[in-house]
């Protein structure tokens, strides 16, 4: 078969699949979100990593800032 034709066919199949897949993903995501928000609403949203052991980088940075703040206004 003419390679250009093959390419066109591949483009149609490819973009078709990409759009079909992402359309399905949009629909199922919307459905999923609706179901989750109805049946499993979590009032507080713990940030990912909240269960991590030990202080995170951000926390350490916060500590550093706190110390800096304290020292800045110290005697």
């Amino acid at each position, binding site marked *: 078969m003419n390679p250009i034709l093959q390419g066109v066919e591949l483009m149609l199949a490819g*973009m078709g699949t990409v759009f079909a897949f992402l359309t399905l993903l949009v629909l199922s995501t919307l459905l999923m979100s609706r179901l989750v*928000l109805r049946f499993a609403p979590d009032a507080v949203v713990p940030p*990912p*990593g909240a269960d991590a052991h030990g202080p995170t980088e951000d926390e350490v940075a916060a500590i550093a800032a706190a110390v800096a703040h304290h020292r800045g206004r110290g005697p």
Partner: protein
Amino acid sequence: MERLSDLWLASGLYQMSWGQAVMIAVCLGLLYLAVARRFEPLLLVTIGFGGILSNLPGAEIATGNGLLHLTYVVGIETGAFPLIIFMGVGAMTDFGPMLANPKTLFLGAAAQFGIFATLLGALGLSALGWFDFSLQQAAAIGIIGGADGPTAIYVAGKLAPELLGAIAVAAYSYMALVPLIQPPIMRALTTARERAIEMRQLRTVSRVERIVFPLLLVLLVGLMLPAAAPLLGMFCFGNLMRECGVVERLSDTTRNALINIVTIFLGLAVGSKLAADAFLVPSTLGILVLGMAAFAVGTATGVLMAKLMNLLTREPINPLIGAAGVSAVPMAARVANRVGQEANPHNYLLMHAMGPNVAGVIGSAVAAGVLILLAGE
């Protein structure tokens, strides 16, 4: 005396070809861009240095039992390295903005047109007799338009390993060049008023949604297009580890020690494909030109899709965020934000652009699956 002559015959000075000297200069150029201009340094430093080592004649690092060649066989021929990197990327990815506004997934779909247009372009140039790309090779070149390093390396490793060096260099270089490539196209296709559109603030996404989404995605891809399941499966696995909150130590190692180790060896292994005899061929030039076109077309179709959606839906979308649909995470999202602020200083598009940005990762992985399935063999 004989020893001296042995040493001279074994020296690089004696054995070096012009091509190798040129490739070393090219690799020094890549290192310069990586270090002085911060062009995708994680990959261009490792690829560039691997390329230098691979062009030292007589060192035999990138052939036979040399470390770089063994790394290539173990990590890239098997697909392991790009898949592990993809797992690490998943462990770094926040799907929140996309979940808050799933419509932006369409932007990530539209921008994949760059992949297929480039594929057609490669076949067209071959029909004109300028190059001689097979369907497999054309598909591997097209994937540069996915603007996603591991996906490009994975597909090239499957469909056209002989072009992997050029494809990886093009993909990472153009990802670094996104701030130069995209803005003119974005401005040309939008009015100042469109660029000034402010978008509604995104809703909060619940923890359960974040946990369920990667499972939904992997199941959908398994049902629809299993050829994309290795890539998207590892991506979803990384993301689930990140979001589920109960394996933080695994998630942390995945996005730090593990992805760093694999990045180093992936870069060196890709560098082993920059040996002069494989890289200094006319097709490399074609790949570089076509790769640039892939980014440009993907940017354009992403923006145009956003404009089309504005015609069809009520809630306004700033068309600039369509450009982020190519992926090139997070560079393309930052570019959308910056161009938006030029038109309207109160416009904060970054979060809105992250949706199409990660959608572009999914979109190009799906495209990769189609290419492997239909162009493979």
